[in-house]
């Protein structure tokens, strides 16, 4: 028996309240039928006896208290899944928008997802070659990792993400697919990704979920959950290797803030809800691999740091959850260095166990350490040079400045289409380090230096 609840008790922001509801279930989906015959979808977010608060995904604009009838479905939010979803384009709630009709489901799955049991996880160790020197050498991407790109408005994070998809997938013969979730991005950006995937000839391995900047904001809260449910299905049921790109997490967090404040919750830092950490974790932690199951979910969330501030709650909390980060730098971007990766704050936590002999090369770890230590010294030298002038620097510092310039020009700067193998990248690293006298390389032991150091001594 379907019970229709006529009338609403109140509407506030994206929330509608109803009274007189019996046996509502937490987080169940409701259908709201409007006077004009259209239908909206909502989710129960709070129950107090017979009073129920519903979050309306499409927004409450135009809703009337009197003429809305609500049906409680009794089900959590589920999306249809089938192997045919590859190559399809959906809206933010996983409804097809490419004109190819509904998905004929082989399975319905709850988008909330359950946490992976830490005991059942497989510790990620497989190196993914992205062909980008700064990432491969210094912040290595590992299959099953979550490695966000911290960027700012106007920087080339989209190009970088496309380059990673293109180069890492084509080099790899395995069964791969990309799940792309856009949250509040501009139409142009979505179009850019789409054409890039087509040019790279991977579109039939891509699932796109688009919640664009002009789409309903509350829908955005569900978009990454739908995307990750699709990714988990493709990875652990169909055994593919999935790369999930989530862009832009800043828009997602802002949607969450809007929702939280209309719910009247006590805000934490910068008005974001106190549970922002747990909420982001419920997304990011859905990356990984499962022991004994072929397939993996690797995540590259992209976020634009408001005002390039890495201590803003969104990048800050993200950094605490993800396994490292790739930070883009505004100054490098101005100089025309592409990709503008700032190597010192960039980091991959899973790198230590996924590089070295058997994965990349035995000298990878000492080389990465030494390059980063040298870059840190370059920073000091630069700071000093800006005070006393470069001419007054000691000989050692002058060498460092020279090294720093070469590092930016040769190592960091690489074309959008240039695909470097890990050997090329590592050799390039040694070539640059050989500009420095051997005694300055204090992070590397002598055996490694003997094998790779080509400088004068």
């Amino acid at each position, binding site marked *: 028996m379907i019970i229709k609840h006529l009338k609403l008790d109140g509407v506030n922001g994206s929330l509608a309240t109803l009274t007189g509801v019996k*046996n509502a279930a*937490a987080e169940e989906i409701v259908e709201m039928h409007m006077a004009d015959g259209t239908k909206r979808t909502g989710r129960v977010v709070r129950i107090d006896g017979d009073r129920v608060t519903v979050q309306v995904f499409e927004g409450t604009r135009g809703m009337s208290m009197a003429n809305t009838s609500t049906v409680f479905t009794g089900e959590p939010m589920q999306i249809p899944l089938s192997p045919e979803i590859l190559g399809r384009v959906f809206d933010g709630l996983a409804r097809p928008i490419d004109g190819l009709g509904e998905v004929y489901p082989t399975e319905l799955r709850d988008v909330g997802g359950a946490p992976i049991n830490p005991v059942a996880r497989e510790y990620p160790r497989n190196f993914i070659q992205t062909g980008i020197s700064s990432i491969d050498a210094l912040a290595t991407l590992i299959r099953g990792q979550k490695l966000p790109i911290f960027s700012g408005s106007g920087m080339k994070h989209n190009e970088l993400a496309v380059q990673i998809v293109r180069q890492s997938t084509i080099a790899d013969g395995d069964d791969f697919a990309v799940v792309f979730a856009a949250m509040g991005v501009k139409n142009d950006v979505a179009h850019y990704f789409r054409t890039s995937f087509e040019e790279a000839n991977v579109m039939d391995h891509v699932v796109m979920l688009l919640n664009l900047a002009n789409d309903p904001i509350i829908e955005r809260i569900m978009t990454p959950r739908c995307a990750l449910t699709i990714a988990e299905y493709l990875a652990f049921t169909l055994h593919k290797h999935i790369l999930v790109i989530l862009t832009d997490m800043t828009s997602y967090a802002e949607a969450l803030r809007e929702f939280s404040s209309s719910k009247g919750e006590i805000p934490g830092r910068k008005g974001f809800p106190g549970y922002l950490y747990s909420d982001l974790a419920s997304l990011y932690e859905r990356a990984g691999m499962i022991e004994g199951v072929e397939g993996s979910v690797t995540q590259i969330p992209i976020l634009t740091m408001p005002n390039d501030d890495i201590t803003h709650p969104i990048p800050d909390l993200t950094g605490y959850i993800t396994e490292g980060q790739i930070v883009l730098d505004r100054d490098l971007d101005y100089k025309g260095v592409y990709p503008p990766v700032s190597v010192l704050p960039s980091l991959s936590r899973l790198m230590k166990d996924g590089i070295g002999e058997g994965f990349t090369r035995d000298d990878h770890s000492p080389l990465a350490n030494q390059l980063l230590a040298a870059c840190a010294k370059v920073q000091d030298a630069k700071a000093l040079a800006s005070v006393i002038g470069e001419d007054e620097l000691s000989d050692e510092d002058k060498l460092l400045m020279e090294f720093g310039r070469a590092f930016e020009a040769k190592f960091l700067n690489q074309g959008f289409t240039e695909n470097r193998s890990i050997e090329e990248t590592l050799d390039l690293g040694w070539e640059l380090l050989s500009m420095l006298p051997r005694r300055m390389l204090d992070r590397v032991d002598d055996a490694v230096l003997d094998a790779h150091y080509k400088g004068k001594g």
Partner: protein
Amino acid sequence: MAVHQIYGINGPVVTIKGETSLGMMETVFVGNERLIGEVIGLKKDMTTIQVYEETAGLTVGEPVYPTGSPMRVALGPGLLGNIFDGIQRPLPAIRDAFGAFIGRGAQFDALHAQKKYKVTVTVHVGDRVSGGDVYATCPETPVVVHKIMIPPQMSGEIVEALPDGEYTVKDTVAKLKTDAGEVIDLTLVQYWPIRVPRPTAERLPSDKPLITGQRVIDTVFPIAKGGAAAIPGGFGTGKTMTQHQLAKWCDADIIIYVGCGERGNEMTQVLSEFSALQDPRTQRPLLERTVLIANTSNMPVAAREASIYTGITLAEYYRDMGYHTALMADSTSRWAEALREISGRLEEMPADEGFPAYLPSRLSEFYERSGYVRNLNGTEGSVTLIGAVSPQGSDFSEPVTQNTKRFTRCFWALDKSLAYARHYPAINWNQSYSEYIGDLANWYRDHVAPDFMQCREELCTLLSEENSLMEIVRLIGADVLPDDQKLIIEIARVIRVGFLQQNAFHADDTFVPPEKQYKMMQVILHLYHRSKEVVARQIPISKILATGLLDRLTKMKYDIPNNHLELFDTYLRDIDAAIDGILR
């Protein structure tokens, strides 16, 4: 007992309308799936419950079952080597029941019910026993003997003792008649509420160090057994890495590692590494002395709040047996955030940054459960607490860091710029401190070297002098400094790179015994003293640099194996020879 009905649901918080007989902090089962919950608020017309599992799908009107007991953990053999969630449900059992993803509403015995242990019953009929007395022992793992003790409040006379043999945790091995005349079956397991500290006979001074094998900790900022330390640091500064290093190498008998609201992959890593790594003292896998508690960031937030208490209760239980235990909590900020989240759902008045006003008192209650004590049974044991703190925006002035600082005596501040330069452990020597130095001075004097503390002092002075000199260098460059100050900068560099920096991936350098730490310090200071003679004679410092001694000292941590400390003598001789050569 009366069954109640759900009235309201808001995230992990569930309410019941009307007056109930439920007690504060009582464990309840919520809904048809019997999710585990705890009563956290009682009002005349409303009872508030936090649910330790995902509440999606829970319906108004579903039943709430009382249990009559507070949230408690099972204590007995089978804890070591196991991995639990925040409310002591064994994760391997959950995996066997649900597969790779964690399901809901499952109740599991924390301790394996069928496994038999080789039990030695140590009491005889007629013995008078009281709380803490050991009545049976069994080898829990090849390295740890589990002592089964009379629960703290109980005392009486043993009226039956079974012979030694193979028993499961639920088998009765002895019977006790209390003074009131009640006969109680003593099994291998006892229960204890997680929010109540286990009683002890008395607190003893903390005057023995917890040796961690990390130079910057043991030598510069040592921690006592029974002490409490905080490791604050922004993301990427190596909190987790430092915690792992301590858990691997510190000389505690038992390690409780609580992954509280952190990454799933990290727990997997701990699990696989600790099964593979050998304890240097026993040559057995580290996992055999470790209990893991994993409540990752995507697991329910209320269980995250409980995980810290579950961990400390287990630590206290092993302490009661006379073991030295260390609890690593990574990270206490996530626990504080869980408090904040629940407090927000209860619509309590927020204090600083939305955290509840009781944050400081909860933190102090937790850290005060550490200590070096005499147990009820007369043995000595300790609980050392090492809590990681994840300050928002790497800002140490935020409430969790500030309040933690008040209740811990060791503060190991991790520094972003050191981490960027890949200086690990990235413990900043200018911001960190240890209040235990005075308490531990005698131990270092008696067990390592008589002049250990003097050497440490000199080392620290050099570092702080370098710090003030660097301010000048940053403005005008190093070239203008006089030679004696240049020498300080050069020696401080050796201390920083050769001593403070430690390579966790190097076979020898990952754990360095205190004797080697002392020798390294001695050699560096010897070079400093001899070089001062050179500088005093107006001989240019470049002559000392040309000997290559500084570079050699920087790498001595790799060149001298931990079991060949006599090699340090050649360094001392070489220094003398080189400096004498310059002076001649």
